[in-house]
C-alpha cells in the first residue's frame, strides 16, 4: 500500500486553488482518526515505511503515552488521483475528547470538508454527534466513513443505516475503511478529491489569512498556523496583524508535510505556517487575520470564540522555592494553550500558587502532568471546582473560582454553571442512566431514538456534578456503552453551601469546597475520615471537623502519638543516629504546618486527589 511521493507535486504558493482540498477528520474519541491519518501519510508517500510509527501525528510524549490526540495537526499531502491530477490535500487530524472540542472548531474553520469517522463496532457516540453538528454549523461537506471494518465485532450494515439516518444520506454513501489495514483508504481519498469543494478566494485581493493555531517552539519562537483566504503571502514580506495592528517581518513561511518545510509563500486556500521571530503567542492570536503591511486588507475574517475555562484548581509547588519556576512554566505552557488561564493566589495551608482554569479534568490532568514532566516540578493540585456567582443581599455580586473565597454572611443567591449534556447509549440502560442523572440533580430535556436500540438522552445538569466522576459512573452503569458530550448552557440558582475543614479548630483553606446542601454532610464525613487516615499522629490529639459556617457537621479525631523514640542499643554508631535525625528533619521540612499540626505533603495530595478523574490511558 505505501506509495512513493509524487514527483510532480503541486508547489506551495503556486498551487491552483482548483487542485486544493482542505479537510479534517472528526470523530468520537478513539474511533481511529490518527490511525486513518497514518494511512494517508503513507498512501501519499510523505512518510516512508522506515519512519512510520503508529499515530505519527501524535507528536507530544503525553499524547503517545495516553494514546490520545490533544492538539490538531495539519499536514499537506500530494495525492496523485485516478483522474491523473496530483492534488494538494490539507488534512487536519483533530482530538476526540470533549475537553478539546475547541481544537475541532478551529480546524473546521480552515476546511471545506470533513471526514466523519465512526467506529464500525461502536456506532455513533456522543462526540460523533457533537462534532457533526459543529461541522454542519460551518457548512462543510461531510464524508461519512465507517472505520475498523476489519474487526470481527464490526456491524457496518447496522451503523451505516444509523449514520444515514442522522445526516440524511443513503447507507450506500457511507464508505467503509480499515485504518488498520488500509482497506478503503484510497477510495476515501478519491471521494475527498471528488466531493470536497476546492477553496474559493480572490487571488488578487489584499491578503487575508486566518490564524487557526499558534504554537511556541523553543527553537523557532512562535509558529503561527494559517489558512489563506484571499491573496498571497510571500516570504520576506512584512505582515500585519489586523486586530493588534502589530507588524512583523516574515522570517519563514512554509507548509507541514509532514515536517515543516519552507516555501516561497502561500496562495489562496493554502494551509501552512509563519514564523516572525515573535516570542509571545499573544502577538499572534488565534482567530486574528494576517495581512501584508504593503497592501493591507481592511475587513477582518470572522474569528473564534476564546475557549472558556470550566474547571478551576489551585496549583502549588510542593517545594515553595519552586514558585517562580512554576510561574515560568505556566507562562510557557500558556503559549501553546490558549485555554489555560491562571492567576496567582495564596493559601494559608499550601503557600504561594496559582488558581488555574481548565477546559475539563483531562485538560487539568494533562497540564499538570506536563508541568511536572517537562519542567521538573512537583505539584499539589487542590480539588477541582467550577465557577460560582454569588449574589449578596446588599445587591453586590462575587464571582468565586476558589471555594475558600466563598463569601460568608448575607447571601441572596448562588448560581452555578449548567450544561446541556447529551448521552448516547443502548436503550436497555435508559433506567439506570436516568437514576444517575437524578442523583446528580439533572433535568431531562428530551429523548430520541437514533435507531431501535440506541437512544439519545438530553439532560440539563450542573457542571459541578459531571466534571468529576460522572463519566466513570455512567460507563460502569452501562458496561461501557454510553458516551457523553456536554456544552455549557448557562447558569442556575442552587442551594449551595461552603463546607470548611478544620484541623484543631483552624480552617484548612485548601480543603474548602462548595457543595449542594444535600451533599454537604456526605462530603464532610468523607473528608474528615480521609484526613484521619492520612495525617500522622501528632504529639497531641488533633480534632478534625467539617463545618458549614459555625455549624459542625462531621468530626473525627487523630489520637496523640505516644511513642516516637528509638529505644535500641546502637553502641558507638552515633553517625547512624545523626543521619537518621537529619533524614527525619528533611521529612519535617516537607511538612506543611496548619497551626501546630504537621501535615505531610502526601496527605494533601492524597486528600485532594479525586477518586477517578478524567478518562484514563488506553494504549
Amino acid at each position: 500500500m505505501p506509495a512513493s511521493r509524487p514527483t510532480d507535486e503541486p508547489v506551495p504558493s503556486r498551487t491552483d486553488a482548483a487542485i486544493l482540498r482542505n479537510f479534517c477528520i472528526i470523530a468520537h474519541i478513539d474511533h481511529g482518526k490518527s490511525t486513518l491519518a497514518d494511512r494517508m501519510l503513507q498512501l501519499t508517500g510523505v512518510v516512508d515505511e522506515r519512519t512510520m510509527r503508529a499515530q505519527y501525528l501524535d507528536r507530544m510524549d503525553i499524547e503517545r503515552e495516553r494514546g490520545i490526540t490533544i492538539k490538531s495537526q495539519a499536514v499537506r499531502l500530494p495525492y496523485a488521483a485516478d483522474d491523473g491530477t496530483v492534488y494538494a490535500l490539507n488534512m487536519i487530524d483533530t482530538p476526540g475528547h470533549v475537553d478539546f472540542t475547541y481544537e475541532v472548531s478551529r480546524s473546521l474553520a480552515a476546511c471545506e470538508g470533513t471526514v466523519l469517522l465512526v467506529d464500525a463496532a461502536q456506532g455513533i457516540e456522543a462526540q460523533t454527534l457533537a462534532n457533526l453538528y459543529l461541522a454542519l454549523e460551518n457548512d462543510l461537506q461531510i464524508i461519512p466513513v465507517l472505520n475498523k471494518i476489519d474487526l470481527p465485532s464490526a456491524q457496518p450494515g447496522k451503523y451505516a443505516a444509523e449514520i444515514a439516518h442522522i445526516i440524511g444520506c443513503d447507507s450506500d454513501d457511507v464508505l467503509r475503511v480499515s485504518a488498520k489495514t488500509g482497506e478503503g483508504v484510497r477510495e476515501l481519498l478519491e471521494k475527498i478529491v471528488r466531493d470536497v469543494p476546492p477553496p474559493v478566494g480572490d487571488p488578487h485581493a489584499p491578503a487575508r489569512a486566518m490564524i487557526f493555531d499558534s504554537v511556541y517552539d523553543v527553537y523557532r519562537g512562535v509558529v503561527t498556523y494559517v489558512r489563506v483566504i484571499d491573496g498571497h503571502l510571500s516570504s520576506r514580506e512584512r505582515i500585519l496583524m489586523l486586530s493588534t495592528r502589530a507588524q512583523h517581518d516574515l522570517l519563514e513561511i512554509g507548509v507541514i508535510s509532514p515536517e515543516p518545510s519552507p516555501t516561497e509563500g502561500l496562495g489562496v486556500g493554502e494551509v501552512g505556517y509563519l514564523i516572525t521571530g515573535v516570542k509571545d503567542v499573544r502577538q499572534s492570536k488565534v482567530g486574528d487575520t494576517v495581512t501584508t503591511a504593503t497592501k493591507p486588507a481592511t475587513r477582518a475574517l470572522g474569528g473564534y470564540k476564546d475557549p472558556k475555562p470550566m474547571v478551576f484548581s489551585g496549583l502549588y509547588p510542593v517545594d515553595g522555592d519552586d514558585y517562580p519556576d512554576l510561574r515560568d512554566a505556566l507562562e510557557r505552557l500558556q503559549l501553546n494553550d490558549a485555554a489555560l488561564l491562571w492567576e496567582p493566589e495564596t493559601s494559608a495551608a499550601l503557600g504561594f500558587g496559582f488558581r488555574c482554569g481548565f477546559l475539563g479534568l483531562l485538560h487539568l490532568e494533562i497540564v499538570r502532568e506536563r508541568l511536572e514532566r517537562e519542567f521538573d516540578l512537583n505539584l499539589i493540585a487542590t480539588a477541582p471546582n467550577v465557577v460560582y456567582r454569588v449574589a449578596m443581599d446588599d445587591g453586590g455580586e462575587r464571582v468565586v473560582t476558589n471555594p475558600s473565597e466563598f463569601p460568608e454572611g448575607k447571601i441572596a443567591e448562588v448560581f452555578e454553571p449548567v450544561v446541556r449534556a447529551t448521552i448516547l447509549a443502548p436503550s436497555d440502560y435508559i433506567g439506570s442512566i436516568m437514576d444517575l442523572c437524578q442523583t446528580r440533580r439533572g433535568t431531562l430535556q428530551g429523548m430520541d431514538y437514533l435507531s431501535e436500540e440506541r437512544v439519545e438522552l438530553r439532560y440539563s445538569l450542573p457542571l459541578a456534578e459531571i466534571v468529576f466522576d460522572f463519566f466513570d459512573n455512567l460507563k460502569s452503569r452501562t458496561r461501557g456503552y454510553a458516551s457523553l458530550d456536554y456544552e455549557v448552557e448557562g447558569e442556575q440558582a442552587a442551594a449551595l453551601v461552603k463546607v470548611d475543614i478544620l484541623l484543631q479548630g483552624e480552617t484548612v483553606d485548601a480543603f474548602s469546597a462548595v457543595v449542594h446542601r444535600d451533599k454537604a454532610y456526605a462530603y464532610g464525613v468523607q473528608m474528615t475520615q480521609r484526613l484521619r487516615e492520612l495525617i500522622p499522629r501528632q504529639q497531641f490529639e488533633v480534632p478534625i471537623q467539617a463545618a458549614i459556617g459555625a455549624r459542625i457537621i462531621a468530626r473525627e479525631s487523630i489520637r496523640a502519638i505516644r511513642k516516637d523514640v528509638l529505644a535500641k542499643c546502637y553502641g558507638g554508631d552515633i553517625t547512624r543516629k545523626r543521619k537518621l535525625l537529619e533524614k527525619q528533619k528533611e521529612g519535617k521540612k516537607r511538612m506543611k504546618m496548619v497551626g501546630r499540626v504537621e501535615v505531610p505533603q502526601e496527605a494533601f495530595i492524597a486528600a485532594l486527589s479525586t477518586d477517578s478523574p478524567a478518562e484514563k490511558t488506553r494504549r
Partner: protein
Amino acid sequence: MPSALPEGEPAPPDGRLPASSLAGLGSRPFGIYVHVPYCAVRCGYCDFNTYTATELGGGASQQAYAGTAAAELTLARGVLGALDLPVATVFFGGGTPTLLPPDDLGGLVRRIRDDFGLVEGAEVTTEANPDSVDAESLHRLREAGFTRVSFGMQSAVPHVLRTLDRTHDPDRVALAVGWARAAGFEGVSLDLIYGTPGESLTDWRTSIEAALACEPDHVSAYALVVEEGTRLAGQVRRGELAAPDDDALADRYLLADDLLGVSGMAWYEISNWARADHQQARHNEGYWLGHDWWGIGPGAHSHVGGTRWWNVKHPSAYSARLTAGSSPAYAREVLTAEQQRVERVLLGIRLREGHPLDDLTPIGRSAADQAVTDELLDRSAQANGRAALTLRGRLLADAVVRDLLD
C-alpha cells in the same frame, strides 16, 4: 544480615587522626570497645555485625581473632602517640564475646592494661549470652580483670524467646547471675526486649519480674526494632508476624519504668535503669557524653575529639587490613562544630540530667519552652538551665530532639 555501614570520607591507611582531634586527648575519659563478631546462631531480629562461626575461614577464624584484635590495639597505641592515656572503661560487645575462650578475652584486657594502663577503678564489661558462660568461665573472666557483665536475657517467657530465636533456657539467667555474683563481679546487668510479636503485656510483666528476681544492678530494656534485611523483617513483610505497635510499646515502657522504679532502680538513660548511680554503665555514658574511645574489631566505631571513624565490616577484610599493616578504618567523618552540637543535644537529651539549654539556638530554646508547656520537658530542670525529659517526653524523645534542633 548485618546492617550497612555509613558512608563517609576516606580514612587514611595509617589510621592517622587530624591534629585538631588529638588536641584534647586525655582531658576526657578514654574508653576502649572490643567488638567480637561471632555468635553461635543468629537471632532473627539482629542486625549487629556478627557471623556464625562456620561462615568464616582464613585469617578471620575465632581462634585467630584475639591476635588480630591485639594488632589493632598496637596500631591504636601508635596513632594516639606516646601520651599517657589510661583507660577508664573497656567494653567487650558483639556478637557474643563469651564465645571466645576466657583466656583470649583476658589476654586482650592484659594487652590494654600493658599498652595503655587502666585508671583506678576502671569499668571492664563484657556482654554475655546466658548459655555461653558457666561458673568456671565467669570466674576466669573476673580473675582476668573483668568487673562487670551484661547478660542478654531478652525475656523470661518461652514463646517470646522462641520468636526471638534465643537458645537459652529461661532458668539459665538466674543461674548465670548467681555464678557472676559468686565470681565477684561488681556489676551485673540484664538486657530485655519488649514488643516481640505475640508478647502480651502480662508476658512482659513476667519478664521484668523475673529479671528483678535476679537482683541485677542494672537493666537495659529495649523496644524491639524490626531492622531492614533481618529475618524478622521478612516475617513481618510476609505477614507471618505482626509488626510491634507503637501504643503497645508505650504501655510496655511505662510498665517497665514503673516496676523497675518500685524495686529501687532509677532510669538514667531512656533505655537504662541502675540500682545506684555508681552502677550506671560508664562505658556507654562515654558514647552519650561525647567522650573519646577507640573501637577495636570489624565494623567497630570510634570517636576521638570530633573525628568519628568505623572499621571495615567483614572480619576477613578486617584481618587482611591488619595483616598488611594498615588501618582497618573504612571511612571517617570529621565533624563540624554544628554537627558536634547536634550530636551533643541528640545524645544528651536522652539522659536523666538532660542537656544544657544554653547549647540550643534561640529557636531551639523557644521550642524547649513549648515542650515544657506540653509536659515533654521538666519545668524545674528548665529553671536550672537544663532540658530534661519527663516520662511522657522520654517516649517522644525523637520528636523533642527534632523540635529543639530546628
